[in-house]
């Protein structure tokens, strides 16, 4: 009987998987992250406020590359995010070793979504306490933005927000989003949306902005670049 391992995530009478609901609650307590897809790129941004001035925030990076052209950010539990990024990077390298081409974003997302779903059905584990936003650009599919929830559900979005106050942020985005937006405008809107829900003063040091453009390279904007965009937004 020692090899039996039962799932801790089981249905209740009304058909809900409460552990997943609770995981979503945890995500909603996390700092906000949002993403916007433009015609020529994708921007993702996140609140990176630290709890105390004593924290050495030079070491604190929330956005992570998975392949040179795709980046992840999260809302929720940082440690859970680390596990998912490590897993996604390994999978992307394995893909490259087999096929000698960079893994497309849709498949990167599918790998991570699969893992997150497994943790809602496997024995003895809990769901991940994060929602992920995945941004990428490749020549064949163009710019893409995906959201993956603790349940493992993955959707493509034109613009979305996760974490604290995400409902307000999404309403704001719904009003401001238009299909013809270019990357610069998208960054502008992203910063405005982030500021709507930001507690305290938003500066280039307590947020993080990542972009991937037509060059197909995902990178995090330097504080100086973020400062320029913030000045424009004022």
């Amino acid at each position, binding site marked *: 009987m020692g090899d039996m391992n039962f799932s801790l995530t089981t249905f209740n009478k009304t058909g809900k998987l409460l552990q997943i609901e609770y995981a979503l609650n945890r995500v909603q307590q996390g700092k906000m992250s949002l993403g916007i897809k433009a015609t020529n790129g994708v921007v993702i941004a996140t609140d990176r406020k630290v709890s105390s001035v004593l924290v050495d925030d030079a070491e604190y990076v929330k956005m992570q590359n998975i392949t040179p052209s795709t980046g992840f950010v999260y809302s929720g539990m940082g440690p859970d995010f680390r596990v998912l990024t490590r897993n996604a990077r390994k999978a992307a390298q394995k893909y490259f070793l*087999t096929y000698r*081409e960079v893994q497309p974003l849709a*498949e990167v997302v599918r790998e991570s979504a699969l893992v997150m779903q497994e943790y809602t059905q496997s024995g003895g584990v809990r769901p991940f306490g994060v929602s992920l936003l995945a941004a990428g650009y490749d020549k064949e599919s163009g710019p893409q933005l995906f959201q993956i929830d603790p349940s493992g559900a993955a959707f493509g979005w034109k613009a979305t927000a996760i974490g604290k106050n995400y409902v307000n942020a999404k309403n704001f985005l719904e009003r401001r989003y238009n299909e013809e937006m270019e990357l610069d405008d998208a960054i502008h809107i992203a910063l405005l949306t982030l500021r709507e829900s930001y507690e305290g003063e938003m500066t280039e040091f307590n947020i993080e902005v990542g972009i991937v453009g037509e060059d197909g390279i995902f990178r995090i904007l330097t504080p100086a670049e973020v400062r320029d965009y913030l000045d424009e937004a004022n």
Partner: protein
Amino acid sequence: MDNNSCMNPYGLRDGEMSSGTTIMAVTFDGGVVLGADSRTSSGSYVANRVSDKIVPLHDYVWTCRSGSAADTQAVADYVKYYISAHSGELDRLPRVQTCANLIRKICYNNKDRMMAGMICGGWDPYEGGQVFEIPLGGTIMKQKFAIGGSGSSYIYGLMDSLYRENMTKEECKEFCKKCIAHAMARDGSSGGVIRLVIIDKEGVEKECILGNELPFMP
């Protein structure tokens, strides 16, 4: 120890079929020409004098087989399957490099049990015409042109003297025909007809040069 003699360069087991062979592939601007002889032998018995040693892995990527017929057929079948799933998933044409790499993975991981020398050639919309050679042992080499199989030893000199950069499609075809015909004349394990497969972005053309039309047959 019968399997390790100079009379048995591929270490074939008793009764095993060999694609002794001469195979070759040449790139030109916008595509590739693949060529092969058509003899499958088992010792000195010619089991098939009109075999087809150039097989498709996908619409625009084909591969030439040499060595053990069984091993190369198995590899080609596996790679065809993997590439079909991969290309379906991506919803676009696969890279020649991807196909060649899959061949290499199988050949390298099973190197102790296999005798397969393959030349993978094709066209993709990303890099154009490409040729990759995967000899015994599982190295992979991207080249402008490649020859392989037992008959290739006899034509290294001819190939080097005939090859020129930037040949046209027609010149590549003549180059292949001449080299393979010379190899067939000297190598006991190569013979039959010359099969050519010409791949470019318009599509795939197949040609067969019969025994009495060979450009060289002393």
